[in-house]
């Protein structure tokens, strides 16, 4: 047993490098800056590139250029930076550019509190692109998750050619904790699939596939990339049926695949009539509360979501089973709870939240379950 003390941001940087990321661009912002610091220490000696952009818009733009050249790319910021990323995120969504974007959430709105945690961006990440197309959002609960989910995020970005968010929180990012590095459960590395069809059309999918094969800009075959509404050839189209096919495919490739990356932890309790549902750092207090309740003779089940978007609906329904009541705990004023209400019509769904820079304590959750 070898124990290492590590903060979440370092684990994200190490996970990215392990996943094959060799390009990082970012702009300093608390509490995400230490990812930039770690990538700057790690990438250059590996022959990789780490750049501090002139602003957030440039940082993600640098990443999109490098991704189109064939590199695995990462950027990291906090809520104010996600705001500035927004138009480039839309570009990555609509033009199928693989990228992993880390959001170390801090207390908002706006510049808010740089050194206070919150999970206030979870709906923003989902809905912060023009066009409202689906995105993938993974949420770590601890430092080990930061490593593992970052590797998953790269695999998903490469596999589905889309932006993938890691929605962390100051409370994980800048909190050091014990990890056993040799026991971290990282999946095998997945690379983007090279396009096989000739002549090459940059957005043409092979029969039965929903993700176009990739060729890099700068290779022997000419590649076109565009932020405008395009057909399979990468040129602007105004043909409604072609537009509809393209956008349906982009929606379906992500939403239709969520069962393959529905990362959840379900801790059922025998005879439980209530399930606590949580994500992020709050899931840890929720786990502590569930254990306290079981010890008090009041069995309560626990469901921790590590895939937030697309909503892992089937996994949620399976875990909830015939439980009568679901208590959704979030470090915000009520966001994801509305997805749970949508997924579980007719079920009692109650909310326990807090957004003042303080962690939600196990006792608060216990109280919400018992008397809420």
């Amino acid at each position: 047993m070898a124990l290492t003390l590590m903060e979440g941001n370092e684990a994200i940087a190490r996970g990215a490098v392990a996943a094959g990321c060799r390009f990082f661009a970012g702009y300093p912002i608390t509490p995400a800056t230490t990812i930039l610091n770690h990538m700057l220490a790690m990438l250059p000696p590996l022959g990789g590139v780490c750049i501090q952009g002139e602003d957030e818009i440039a940082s993600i733009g640098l990443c999109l250029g490098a991704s189109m050249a064939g590199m695995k790319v990462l950027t990291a910021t906090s809520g104010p930076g996600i705001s500035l990323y927004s138009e480039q995120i839309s570009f990555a969504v609509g033009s199928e550019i693989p990228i992993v974007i880390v959001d170390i959430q801090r207390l908002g709105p706006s510049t808010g509190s740089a050194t206070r945690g919150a999970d206030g961006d979870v709906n923003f990440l989902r809905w912060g692109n023009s066009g409202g197309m689906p995105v993938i959002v993974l949420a770590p609960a601890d430092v080990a998750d930061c490593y593992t989910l970052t590797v998953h995020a790269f695999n998903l970005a490469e596999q589905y050619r889309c932006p993938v968010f890691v929605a962390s929180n100051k409370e994980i990012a800048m909190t050091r904790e014990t990890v056993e590095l040799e026991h971290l459960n990282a999946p095998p590395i997945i690379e983007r699939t090279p396009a096989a069809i000739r002549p090459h059309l940059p957005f043409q999918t092979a029969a039965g596939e929903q993700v176009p094969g990739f060729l890099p800009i700068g290779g022997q075959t000419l590649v076109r990339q565009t932020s405008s509404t395009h057909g399979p050839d990468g040129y602007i189209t105004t043909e409604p049926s072609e537009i509809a096919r393209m956008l349906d495919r982009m929606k379906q490739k992500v939403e239709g695949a969520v069962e393959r990356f529905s990362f959840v932890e379900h801790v059922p309790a025998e005879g439980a009539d209530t399930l606590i549902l949580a994500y992020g750092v709050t899931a840890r207090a929720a786990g502590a509360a569930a254990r306290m309740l079981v010890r008090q003779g009041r069995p309560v089940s626990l469901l921790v979501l590590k895939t937030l978007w697309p909503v892992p609906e089937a996994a949620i329904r399976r875990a909830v089973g015939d439980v009568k009541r679901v208590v959704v705990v979030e470090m915000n004023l009520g966001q994801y709870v509305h997805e749970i209400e949508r997924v579980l019509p007719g079920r009692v769904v109650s909310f326990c939240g807090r957004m003042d820079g303080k962690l939600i304590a196990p006792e608060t959750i216990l109280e919400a379950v018992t008397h809420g």
Partner: protein
Amino acid sequence: MDSLLNEARPPVFCPGCSHERITHTLDKAFRQMGLTGERICMVSDIGCSGLFDTFFHTHALHGLHGRALTYAAGLKLARPELTVVVTMGDGGQGIGGAHLLAACRRNLNLTLLVLNNFNFGMTGGQYSATTPPGAAVGSGFLNQLERPLDVCEVAKAAGAPYGVRCSAYRNDLPDVIQRAIEFKGFAVVDIWGICPGRFSKRNRLTPKAIEESVGRLAPAEGLIAANQRREFGEHYRELAAAQRAVPPPLAVTPRFAPVSAVRQEVLLLGSAGQRILTAGELLCLAGLYAGLKATQKNDYDITVLRGPSISELVLSPEAIGYTGMSQPTVVVALGPEGVARRRKIFETLTAASVVIQAAGVEIPAGAARIHRVDFKAQGFKPQDWALASLGVLAKLNVVIRPEMLEAALAARLKGEVLSGALDTVRRVAPGDWAAA
């Protein structure tokens, strides 16, 4: 060399647009240079200049308004061998001004062609960053209020090593563009042209008038002597190759028995500059040497050497869920700012909790057992009080033991710093329990 123009997609500009002329000129420059399409990437953004990527048989990346230089930089850093040509209008130059400045300062080997026609053609002729105040444009009187920006002067001031200001009607424009592409560094070509669809409908502008206007300004004809320096990409790769690989993270193999079999919480309250966070990390490492799980959650202001510095530490033989403080085993009060920020916790403490109180630091009343240590009288400087307080805990066998702490110090520190730290934790006198 064959033309790189895309025969299937001929230019679609308004009749008389200088952009069309520049399209053919750029193709001529490519042919003169003997470049084939796969060696070039055209990067463009929004507006009429954003149509350029479709006219060429080259790699192409068309993105958001004003952001073309950001993608171009990423492409060039990833593929240094690629010839990257960026087209941008005066509109894109305005909205992406920060990126132009950064590109000039960075000096990556890119070529920027500013297709400057003094207005937003595509959206109805609104004023841009280069519209003269006397022009009649689609923005009412607004352009009368702002001074137009000289792209070359700005580029020069921002450090661009190469800048050309010229007319789209200049006869040797293919050579001008070729020289800019061949320049090893960031090259800006500000090409003044006519927008017949919008601008010249209401403003008399001829090729001759453009030549005269350009001629009245200080010449910008290429190399800017004062800004010559190394190209960014090559320089980056040289410096990057000299960086040393990061050592693997410290991995601790436990070798001591823990003090307690239950969760222990320690709250360090001090002032910035007291090395509170380092002491917190050392306490966690000490726990790791006893096979414990640990978490360290810090709280401090963004200012350095001013304000509170707080570290919340949990050591436990079991996985740690909640990382906050519920019932601290120990509160260490070393500085008034930290104590002030966590005042409320003192009244929740019971007799099961210990407070290590540095002499001279006031603490609110509570039920905890107080242990007073006069660090100052023992000759410790305030920046060593946090470390010394770990020595106190170890000597009292509270949360940690001396051998755990010394192993943590040896793992984290080296040389004289280590011997100084060992001296501190060995030398500190643990002080006295305050009378109940």
